[in-house]
């Protein structure tokens, strides 16, 4: 940057003529929205024309108070932290290890593995979200396999039961045993379980036993459904798995590119001195890449906090908002039903503050433990 004292005359004009357009665009598309977001977050703006319409004014920190008192915010924050933790302590180490394995050619066809691990990154996020949503759906492939397994088990037990009574010999005892096998939930489907089920079974008299057994399986085998998605403590597991699957390849490429910059003679010297692969990784590669690791961690943290599209496509924050993250929570407040822009802006600013804190912590960790990148 030129010396401030020298910014006059022709040089000053030339300087400003080059800086001003970009600076103006920055003000318009970056600085103005940020300032507007801060202003809106402490306002009572309730929609309609923002400038020159119905007046709106300062409302204090009401929106922030509402954010922090909303259990949905804490649930979304918790989910975001799961993603941050997974990114920093899952994607980065895995990406690093894969990169090291490929870089040191510890596997055959390293180029192939590099490609395979990176492929999820080049697929559209929406496509990935919909793909995994289908995989986990009640009509998807996992459900089909689980249903087939459950059905096969129930069917063999039914066949054994009918064999033990010598075929189609229906009495209350047999019916009760079938109901026991079906479990307590099935009892709710009948007003009077034993006589009603007995009547149903007797209606198959004359039909092949296999038909009756097949229909009893239809009736009693519970269909697999990703109900675990509804449990707040484990609902995020499938989402986290997909995030790990999708983004690890990106860090692999980042680490691999930087490993390739390391002087191979240093590694060879370490190996000649008797260092194992693990020691080479620990004492040569890792310190040399500490800067890259920090930058990757910053990328991972900011990416995790701002992630939206994958989870929006995969679960939409559901079921019952248990997989909601901060960005979806903000989106829902901004656009779902009656928009609440002050609240949505307050959420976005809380996200920014959290990002700064986490990035600051990462920087501190690097200062404390990091090596110097060559």
């Amino acid at each position, binding site marked *: 940057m030129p010396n401030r004292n020298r910014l006059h005359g022709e040089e000053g004009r030339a300087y400003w003529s080059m800086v001003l357009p970009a600076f103006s665009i920055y003000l318009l598309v970056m600085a103005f929205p940020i300032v507007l977001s801060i202003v809106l977050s402490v306002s009572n703006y309730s929609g309609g024309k923002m*400038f020159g319409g119905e007046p709106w004014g300062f409302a204090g920190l009401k929106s922030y108070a509402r954010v922090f008192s909303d259990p949905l915010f804490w649930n979304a924050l918790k989910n975001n932290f799961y993603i941050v933790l997974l990114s920093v302590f899952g994607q980065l180490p895995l990406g690093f290890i894969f990169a090291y394995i490929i870089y040191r050619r510890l596997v055959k066809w390293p180029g192939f593995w590099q490609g395979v691990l990176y492929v999820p990154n080049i697929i559209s996020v929406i496509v990935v979200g919909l793909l995994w949503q289908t995989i986990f759906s009640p009509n998807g492939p996992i459900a089909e396999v689980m249903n087939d397994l459950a059905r096969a088990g129930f069917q063999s037990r039914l066949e054994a039961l009918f064999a033990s009574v010598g075929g189609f010999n229906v009495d209350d005892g047999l019916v009760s045993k079938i109901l026991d096998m079906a479990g307590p939930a099935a009892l709710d489907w009948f007003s009077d379980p034993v006589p009603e089920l007995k009547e149903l079974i007797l209606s198959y008299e004359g039909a092949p036993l296999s038909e009756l057994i097949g229909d009893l399986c239809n*009736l009693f085998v519970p269909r697999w*459904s990703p109900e675990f998605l509804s449990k707040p403590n484990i609902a995020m597991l499938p989402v986290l798995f997909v995030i790990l699957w999708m983004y690890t390849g990106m860090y692999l490429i980042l680490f691999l590119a930087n490993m390739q910059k390391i002087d191979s003679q240093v590694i060879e010297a370490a190996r000649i001195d008797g260092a194992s692969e693990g020691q080479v990784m620990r004492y040569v590669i890792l310190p040399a890449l500490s800067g890259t690791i920090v930058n990757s961690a910053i990328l991972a943290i900011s990416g995790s906090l701002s992630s939206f599209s994958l989870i929006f496509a995969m679960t939409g924050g559901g079921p019952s908002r248990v997989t909601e993250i901060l960005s979806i929570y903000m989106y829902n407040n901004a656009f779902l039903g009656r928009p609440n822009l002050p609240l949505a802006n307050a959420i976005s600013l809380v996200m920014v503050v959290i990002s700064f804190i986490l990035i600051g912590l990462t920087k501190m960790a690097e200062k404390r433990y990091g090596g110097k990148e060559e």
Partner: protein
Amino acid sequence: MKRMIAAILLIAVAAVGGFAQEKVTLTVMNYQQADQAGYPEDVKIWQDFQAANPDITLNIEVLFNDPYHQKLQAYAAAGTMPDVFYVWPGARSAVIHEKKLAKDLNQLLGAAYLKDFSASATNPANQLGGYMAMLPQSFTYTSVMYVNTKLLADNGFKPPKTYADLKKMVPKLKAKGIAVAMLPNKDAWPMQSCLFSTVVGRMAGDDFLDAILAGKAKFTDKPFVAALEVIQNLYKDGILSREDVQIGYGEAAGMFASGKAAIYIDGDWRAGAYITDKASGKALISPAAQDKDFALMPFPAIPGEKNRGVVSAVAGTGWAVSASLPAGSAKEKAATRLIQYLYSNDVQAIRFNTGAYVPTRKGVKADVEPLVAKVPVFYAENPATCYVIDGVLDPAVYNVINDGLIAIGLGTKTAAQVAAETQAAFESWKASK
């Protein structure tokens, strides 16, 4: 003579100049999706207007679902509302109504024009702002049971009249791999809009919801909890499957048509999904089968219901004109002409024909397929209606109900818990007002 010719020419030039109309450009926001039934007809509707009105240029922006609402919201914030736009009568378009961003169509269209529409459509009380910001194209029944009568008959059942009838079907139909009823609820709103509103209407009634809004009753009171328990029992008794909570709204119509369920619960608008698609010539349910094998019914009588047979219904969507158009301006006149065209007998007949809705315009005749023809019959047979919850409660409250109904479906929350959460959300919303 020369003077006379010159005078005639002068008058002719003046006349032509006087009559030549200035070309007006209208910005329009249309709500449409290219893969929806009725899309080609919609495109033609706009093309026909353009061809018949060369003095008006239409700049049409077409969006669907949330992106539409977001863009409209952004236009409202920027103070650049489109001249003509599509709008909801309730909370979904709250800003339009509350900030009076649309003209009062009562004044713009006039009583003589509006007399051709049903009273429910022209009643300002049916709109959030208390004035006629839009003209509902339909009055929608949000809770209809589409019943596959042939499937039921094949298994020895008649269409259900009571809850007990429904429950009685469970073992036999389940044994045949058929769900008794299907209501996909992954998108959270269908259960509330397409069934729970009717159940609340039956068990508690509109008076009860009015009392809640007036602070004289609570969501934790017995009638509302009882309504939630009905939904809880539907899952517990096996009438609805818990997998329905994981099924998206768009997936279920095809599943019902292929015989995976004997009954499908949705709004009256869904009839359009089953009729013949004009572009492909294919129908999910053939017109012949629509006629003899399918029926539209209200949800059966529920034990303990207070208001027998009521069905949730609400004023439907429609068109609005921006309040920013100067009164008496050429733009306002052009917008009025467009609105009158959109609500004309011909256009409404096309909409009716595609199964989009049954028009509020009186006397619209169309050659509709049997299932769509059954919709007005359903209206006539079920005149008693009740509130649709998302039409009367604020999103801050009804979104909690929507999520709670999913939790009930999954079996992770009880009716009492959801009622308590709803009451808490209501109190929080009231405090924020």
